[in-house]
Each structure stands twice: as structure tokens, then as C-alpha cells.
């Protein structure tokens, strides 16, 4: 949901920039968004998308449209799901048993 809202925010930014371009004849919003997203694409977005398993074209389209709101969650998930053998050793801290309060 949070990601969905971030996508909506990115969409609103694009629409606002388009309105600015058409009504005020000022393309600054579109230019800034495009440049920022292109910079993200070449530095981290495309690499993240491909590493995650997304197709190249899909990664380009998503990164150019949504910028970091697209690639950052993927990067975070990859970091969280990259394990070493040590992560699979059973310990007493694998999970916290809630207070079940069972009395029988």
C-alpha cells in the first residue's frame, strides 16, 4: 500500500509537471524529473531491476516513470533476502514466542 501511494505521488508529480508545461509553457518540471530518473536509471535503477529479476525494458520504463519509489523497495528486499549459511543456523532468537497465555 505504501508503495502504491508512492507510485500515486510520482504520478501526481508527472501530471503537475505536464500541466506546468502545457499551461505555463514551462517544461522545468518534466526536465528535472526526466534528468533525475535518468541519473537514477544509469547509476542504480537498471542494475537493481536486472539483479531482482526484472526484464531490461520493464526496468527502464519503471525507473524512468517512478524513480527511486520503484527501485529502492526492490533493493531493500534484496538486501533483506540475501543470506549466508550463518543465517540458517538455528538459535534461540529465530523468533519471539508471543505471550500466548494458554493455561491448559
Amino acid at each position, binding site marked *: *500500500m*505504501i*508503495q*502504491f501511494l508512492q507510485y500515486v505521488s510520482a504520478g501526481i508529480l508527472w501530471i503537475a509537471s505536464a500541466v506546468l508545461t502545457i499551461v505555463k509553457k514551462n517544461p522545468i518540471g518534466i526536465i528535472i524529473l526526466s534528468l533525475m530518473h535518468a541519473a537514477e536509471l544509469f547509476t542504480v535503477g537498471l542494475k537493481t531491476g536486472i539483479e*531482482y*529479476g526484472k526484464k531490461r525494458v520493464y526496468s527502464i520504463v519503471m525507473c524512468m516513470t517512478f524513480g527511486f519509489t520503484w527501485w529502492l523497495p*526492490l533493493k531493500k*528486499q*534484496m538486501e533483506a*533476502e540475501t*543470506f549466508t*549459511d550463518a*543465517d*540458517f*543456523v*538455528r*538459535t534461540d532468537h*529465530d*523468533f*519471539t*514466542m*508471543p505471550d*500466548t*497465555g*494458554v*493455561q*491448559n
Partner: protein
Amino acid sequence: MPATYEKNAVVITKAPALNYFHNNVSLPYDYGRPSYEKRQDVIAIKQAVRKSLDDLDKETGWKEQFKGKKILIKPNLVFVTPPGAYRYDYGIPQTTDPRVFDAVMEVLDGIVSDIIIGEGSGMVTWSYAHMAGYDRIAKNYGCKFVCFEEMPTDRYFCPKAEVGQEVYVPKIISEVIRGERLYVSVPKMKTNIYTGVTLGFKNAMGTFSCNMRYRNHTWQIDKKLSDLLYLFKPDLTVVDGIIGGGGNTPGPNFPVLVDKIVTGTNSVEVDRVVTEMMGFDPTKNKLLIEAGKRGFGDPDVKIVGKKEITPFIPAEQSLLTPRFERNWPGIRYFVGHTNDRAPKLEKLDNDHEFAIEMEKTCGGGCVASLGTTFEVFFGSKTYPLTKKRKLNVIVGNGAEFEGKKYWLDRNGKAYSLEDLKALPGMTYVCGECSAPAKDAASPGLWIRGCGEVNNLAFRLILAMMPTLPGQFDLNNLHIILFGFFRKYFIKLFMAAKGTPTEPNFDAYNDGLFTIPELAEKNLDCDWVEAPVPKLTMEQRIEAIKNVKFLAKFLF
């Protein structure tokens, strides 16, 4: 033909003791790639599943039976709740671990000719399959994933059944019934508030559409589920006992580190063995008693492997437990029944034990659904805000005493309708039979239908504001909502085409759905096909009106 085994076996296989909590409810992003295959947990699970199925083959020869056949394989998808959705720091172990399911698929893929993965979670199967990664498993093996509740239904009569004589199942199940497709059940090892445990053959509950589920979803639920075995039964059962789930499942349950895979060719026997391994007495489990009574077990089954007991926290089919009272000090609960199973009310001042006896009268219905819903609220992050919420909850049609109806509180003290109406705070009246107490209900809080859990839960959310159910994990809410819309529009489309996916909603009482008199030759059959003609235009309009977004009495 379904698989026919000369002898049945149950194989218990131990997996190494590892930390299996990473991705126990959802597959990782790198599923299907070399990095996934190299994970310690994946290697261990695959080895355990393969060994168990190989050992089972040595005992029963199941692989020969499956060679070149088409199969339907069914996981158990309930809610898919990753760590952080509830107050707990683990993924809730109530859905078949997708790593285990993938391991089973890998074994079967080399034997059978065609695989369909099918499930009906009762809510939004598509969303849960997507969240857990089952759609990716299907893609990986080049097979289809089908959501049962979105499929057209076929009707069958089961003359030998006690409760479920008329059954509607999705069309794909007809292939299993006719023996054209073998059926593999891959359940989770877990407790269940309605039936004590939910394992191999109870997993077939997911083949019912919503309205079919609500039929006799009451004290008759054990008979209803056992009757389904007349229609079809698993040809192979693989129980995911890597991380089991104890407590009030399908509410958020508590992990149990079992590290076992249990496989078998007779699901009733598999369930019997696993129930014992969970620390329960299978001879006292009503579901297993009913299945045994119908002759679906096999007393000569061979058990391979050690039946170690790992105690599970039992499910509590009651709101009269000390735990419930401790967790919800503001809830005042009243129960009363008049029927041939209920104890007779002979005085107005009874004790706690008498109230428990009264409550047990209809265990598989509203009480279990209420227990589940309160467990959801208990696990929710909003629990500290709602812990002391005051609410009166009334269940049942009232116990008769001197021509007047009464409901008992937890101490066994009887309250008349006038007493209940005078209670301070909001009052929630639950269940179709509770109509005599409906005047005591706050506006919108008389819940019609027997066991219509979506309606019951949604209105309990309203009554328990500001609670937020944890399974609607905010990160995945858009996927869940999409699933609801998808299901709703598919069902509308099917109804418009004249092929509804649901029988009529008829859970207005716990009466039986009897079948017309059959020809003598059919009386001894396990099942008889009873085709439903295509809907007329008027019926289509009615069917469209009956398609609900969430529940019969909501929207």
C-alpha cells in the same frame, strides 16, 4: 481411475534443525535461480521432501500410479502474513510453506504429465497466491494456477453422506472425481479452531465456494468434511511440518518447530499420525472419528519413521476460557441454546462448567468464527488500543426456562432478553439462530447467517474500533483489494454467461440439504452426477444480484 494402493503407508521424515523462518510464507525474490537453490534451508527442505516421497514409494509404489497421469495439487493458502503484519516478528505459519510446495512440485514434475495447482482460500486466493509466490511456482513448472472460487461449479449427490448430500465443487474437481486427474494435498501442520486440526483431507474445504462453505458450517462441520471423502480423496498427501502452527488458527497462530515432512497414501491415516505428533489424541478428534466411522481409514497402514511428539498449543473453540477473559477483560459474553444437544436449563444460577456445556452445543459455527476474529484482533498492532474495549456478545437462540428464553454469562448466571437489552454499551448478536436476541443488538450488529465469517468479522471490526486486522498488511493491501475486485468481476461475468460459481446462499439454519429420491441402482453409489442446467435469463439476473464483493449481508 484414482490411485489404488495394495497397502498404505505414512512416512515421517526429519529435516535438519535449521532456522527456517526466512521466507516461510513468501518466496524470496531470487526463487528459481542458482542463488535460491544454494540456500541451506532450500537444500534441506528439498532433501527431506524427496527422501520422504522416495521412502513412501518403496512402501506403496505411488510413483508407478502417478506415472504419466494428470494431477491437481492443492496447497493450503489461508492468510499470507509476512513478519510485521501482526505484532509478531515471524511470518504467520498458516499457509503451506512455498519452499515445501516447490520441493513437492520438483518431485512430481519428473513423474506426471500435467499439473494444475488449485486453491480456494475462501477470501482472495489470487492475492494470497501472488503474495506467497505460488504464481511463480506455477510459472517455473510451466503449469496453471487456478482459483477455485472463480470457476464454474458442478453438482453431485452423495447418497451415503450424513450432512453433505448435495455438493457443489469447481469443475476441475470433477476431473478428480471421475478419476481423470489425481489429487495431491499439501497441507500445513496446524491446529484449527473449527476442527481441532486441519491436515490432509480437511484441506479439501478449500474446494468449496463461499456459499458452499457456509452450509452446515456449524456443529455439523466435522460430518460435512468427512462426507466429502465419498466424493474424492487425496491420492497422495504431503504435510508441511517444517514450521507448524498452534493456537486459534485461522487466526494468527504460534510457530512450532517440528522439522518434519509427513507423506502418505491414505490421508485419514496421515492425519491420524500427524495429530498424534502434535500432542493430541486422534481418538478424541471429532473430524477423525467421523472419517473413521465412514471407513476411510486403513487400520493396516504401515508407519515408517519415528512418531516424535512436539506439543502444539491447542485451538480453543470457546470464549469462556481463562485466556479469552484475560485478553479481553471488557467483553461480556452470553450464550444460550435450545435444541436437542443443549443441556436443559433448570435454574437461573448455574456455574461456569454449565455455561461451557451450553456453548459446546454449536462449536463449529459462530463461536469458532468469533474466536478466530478475536485472535486476529489480539495479534493486531492495535490490540493495546482495543484490549479494554467494552462489548456485549450474544450467541444462540436462548435456553428455555419456564417458557422464557435466557442466555448465560461466563459464570452461568442466566439473563433474560430484558436484562440483555438493559446492558450498558454496544451489543453484538451473532448467528442466524440468535434472532430471538436481535432486539438487544446495537444498530447493524445483529449478524445473520450461520458461520458467515466475513460478515461476522467485518461487523466485529466495526464494534471493536479502532482495531485493524493484521492480515490486511498495509504493504500488501493493494494486492488484496485487487484480488477482491478480480474475484467480484469474474463472478459477475460468469453469472452473466449463465454459469454461476456459487450455489444459492442458504446458511439460514443448520438443517440438512437432502437430495431427491434416487433410482435404486444409485443408492449404493458414493456419488451421482447431478448436472445443473444453464441459467435462464431471470436466473442470471438473480445470480448477478447475488454476487457480493465480500459477504452476503454486506456488499
